[in-house]
């Protein structure tokens, strides 16, 4: 295991930010850490990266306990959520500096820095960081986190503030790192669709505790989240369709889309069998749907279901970064 925690707790005075979290992340995997604002995600990451002291429990990072912070820090790369950069420095100088902090010789650090700058599309390393765009700075931060080729990468909102193209680039790079270099990635993000795409493992936190853990499918299935079908029928078939669907066992709810006469939004069990049963019921009743669009429950649905008593009270919407 790359990361193992056992009853890990973090407190700030009387406030319990992380409450007895036990987690395991396999080497070379990408673990998504989700949760509403104030759930304890950042505190969890800061505890694992030895920034904040642990109030209880234990954790190991690639076999190094948190009680050996130097060994832990040597094995990890971190891109914090609030990450500033020295504007007067050049990107090359910045990376070279961090390379040396991780014990590299100046020449090695410079070589590695140039390699990373090219890898992340930052070709002019002599440019001052103050001239970099937001996306460039994020990529620079990621390069810095990778300067020493760490075994574990902790990323807190790495795509924050990036445009869709920038987000895509980062996600592709992370997936490549995990596959090609075996880097374990601990990804804290609000972008649920990104997590669905690249994470091997997901943990959802709420009120300082892990409320769900596993693969995306496992979490969706265990959350009781529902699938949705949008069915379009002729307006005159709406009453019949409503009656038929409400009578179908797999259908949980039916509502009408008032903005589109003839559209019904049906909540059904989260599997394609239920969708097929609903469609068959309509056909058997003589209703010919104009369209039938089924969407199975997704991580965002599971997230909403699991965090409905969320800490921060903010609505987390799929695909929208906070």
């Amino acid at each position, binding site marked *: 295991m790359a990361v193992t925690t056992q009853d890990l707790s973090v407190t700030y005075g009387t406030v319990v930010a992380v409450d007895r979290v036990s987690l395991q992340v396999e080497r070379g995997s990408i673990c998504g850490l989700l949760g509403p604002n104030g759930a304890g995600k950042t505190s969890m990451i*800061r505890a694992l990266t030895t920034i904040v002291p642990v109030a209880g429990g234990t954790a190991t990072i690639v076999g190094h306990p948190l009680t050996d912070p130097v060994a832990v820090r040597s094995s990890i790369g971190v891109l914090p959520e609030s990450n500033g950069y*020295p504007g*007067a420095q050049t990107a090359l*100088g910045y990376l070279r500096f961090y390379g*040396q*902090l991780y*014990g590299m010789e100046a020449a*090695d650090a410079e070589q590695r820095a140039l390699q990373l700058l090219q890898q992340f599309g930052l070709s002019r390393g002599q440019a001052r960081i103050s001239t970099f765009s937001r996306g460039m700075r994020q990529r620079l931060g990621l390069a810095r986190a990778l300067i020493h080729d760490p*075994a574990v990468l902790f990323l807190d909102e790495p795509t924050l503030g990036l445009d869709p193209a920038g987000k895509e680039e980062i996600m592709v790079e992370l997936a490549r790192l995990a596959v090609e270099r075996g880097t374990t990635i601990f990804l804290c993000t609000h972008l649920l669709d990104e997590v669905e795409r690249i994470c091997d493992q997901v943990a959802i936190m709420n009120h300082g505790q892990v409320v769900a853990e596993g693969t995306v499918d496992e979490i969706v299935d265990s959350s009781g989240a529902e699938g949705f079908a949008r069915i379009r029928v002729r307006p005159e078939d709406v009453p019949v369709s409503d009656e038929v669907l409400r009578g179908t066992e797999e259908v949980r709810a039916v509502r009408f889309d008032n903005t589109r006469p003839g559209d019904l939004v049906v909540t059904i069990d989260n599997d394609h069998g239920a969708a097929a049963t609903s469609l068959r019921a309509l056909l058997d009743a003589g209703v010919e749907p104009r369209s039938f669009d089924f969407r199975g429950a997704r991580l965002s649905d599971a997230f909403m279901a699991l965090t409905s008593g969320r800490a921060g009270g903010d609505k987390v919407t799929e695909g929208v970064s906070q």
Partner: protein
Amino acid sequence: MTTLSAGSTSTDVAGRTRPATRWTVIARYELMDLWSGGKGLSILFGFTLVLSILAYLASADAGINLLDARESVGLLVTTSIALGTLGAMVVSADAISGERDRDTLESLLVTPVPRRHIVVGKLLAASSVWIATLLVALPFAAVMAGGPGVMSDAVTVLVVSGSLSAAALTALGLAISAVTMSNRTSLVVSLAVLLALAAPSQLPAVRSSTTVGPILIKLNPVSASLRLAENVLVRQEPWPDQLVYFISPALAAVVFTVVAIRLAGRLELGGSR
């Protein structure tokens, strides 16, 4: 490319030596940031301007015997010590709390660099401000001294007493920066402390007092340095009698440096949490 395992030193076929110790890396980086980013030169320019005006006016007064050479050099030396240490303190007061404000501290704290190395590196970089102001002040002292005797006294006071005061106040500024959660607070507290150290000893009541005044002046590292300069340069008192005025600056330099390094072990993000 050399393959590294986390935390190890690097060696290659050529068997190159261990990488530089971390505090030297930090010191070099901070020095570059300070002097190539404009901040260091801005402080130095302000200092040079003030010193130039002061030196010219003092020399003009000396030219009409309003001040004699020793008095004018004494004025220059005490002003140089006061402003030079202030400049160094301003930089050190920004060293940690500034990183907090700019959100660059966390990236530094997650590296395997021991906290005390971070503090020592920043301390050395901040001290460069004093060294630069010293290098600017020395030619002025040489020209205004008017003779080797006064010049050697002035240089000795600047280098020894001034450096001790600067070391003390730079370390104090860094210690304050390490524990305050915002840069503004750090600067205000540092300046207030400097004022509290410097101002009382300049009050006529304290200066003319024969009991509490002399003790207060000797205990206070800032006033001790300024009084030393005055005694040696203006009153021409012998050097052996002034050794007592070295004690509090030297002690303060050691104590504040130790405090700053010890506080390094408790560096935390603070407000950004």
